[in-house]
């Protein structure tokens, strides 16, 4: 299985990544991808900028583990997980999870599994800038629930 996991300061081009995932593999019948984007609104406030911090080393390990778990659960032909760090503006892609497989069911499940676990297990932290200054984003309870679904 083709696997790429990357954390980068550079702008994330989701289409280039999906194209690389698909390239020349005529066995791929389905690609499901999740693109997480910076919104200009959170918790009732306008957000003008965002900064993403991570724990280098642990991040990559955590993502590897999540992707490996997904590729054990489902038959996959390729996975790419690319995550931005540093400063972001509204509309910027934050994360891409792209999964290729022969049939769609596996690709959908694996893609959602990976982003659900990334949200609760990968050491990234968002800080957003509002009119009142900057603030750390709080973890969402709904993310824990999303992860818990996969335990059954």
């Amino acid at each position, binding site marked *: 299985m083709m696997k790429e996991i990357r954390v980068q300061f550079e702008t994330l081009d989701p289409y280039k990544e999906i194209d690389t995932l698909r390239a020349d593999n005529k066995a791929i019948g389905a690609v499901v991808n999740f693109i*997480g984007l910076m919104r200009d609104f959170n918790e009732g406030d306008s957000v003008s900028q965002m900064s*993403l*911090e*991570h*724990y280098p*080393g*642990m991040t990559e*390990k955590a993502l590897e583990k999540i992707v490996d778990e997904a590729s054990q659960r489902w038959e996959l032909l390729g996975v790419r997980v690319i*995550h931005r760090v540093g400063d972001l503006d509204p509309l910027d892609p*934050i*994360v891409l999870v792209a999964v290729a497989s022969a049939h769609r069911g596996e690709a959908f499940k694996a893609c959602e599994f990976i*982003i659900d676990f*990334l*949200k*609760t*297990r*990968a*050491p*990234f*932290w*968002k*800080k957003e800038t509002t009119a009142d200054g900057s603030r*750390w*984003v*709080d*973890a*969402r309870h709904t993310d824990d629930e999303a992860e818990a679904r996969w335990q059954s």
Partner: protein
Amino acid sequence: MIKVLYFARLREELKTESEELALDASTADIIALKLKLSARGDIWSDIFAGDETVMAALNQEVAKPDDKLKDGDEVAFFPPVTGG
């Protein structure tokens, strides 16, 4: 010696990115280390003995409170993650 790292809100509030500590009874496991840090008082006690959730990692993997520490270990403390 062990290395201790702080991330995100913790790094800012503690005004500390990392430090090295001697390995002894006060740093025998994660829970002992948290007690030692909270004993520094002020913001340290607010964070390590307060209500906020503090996550711990040992050698870049999620740690349990009773995980033992050994020479050269890297411990990290951080708030719940919010990436993606």
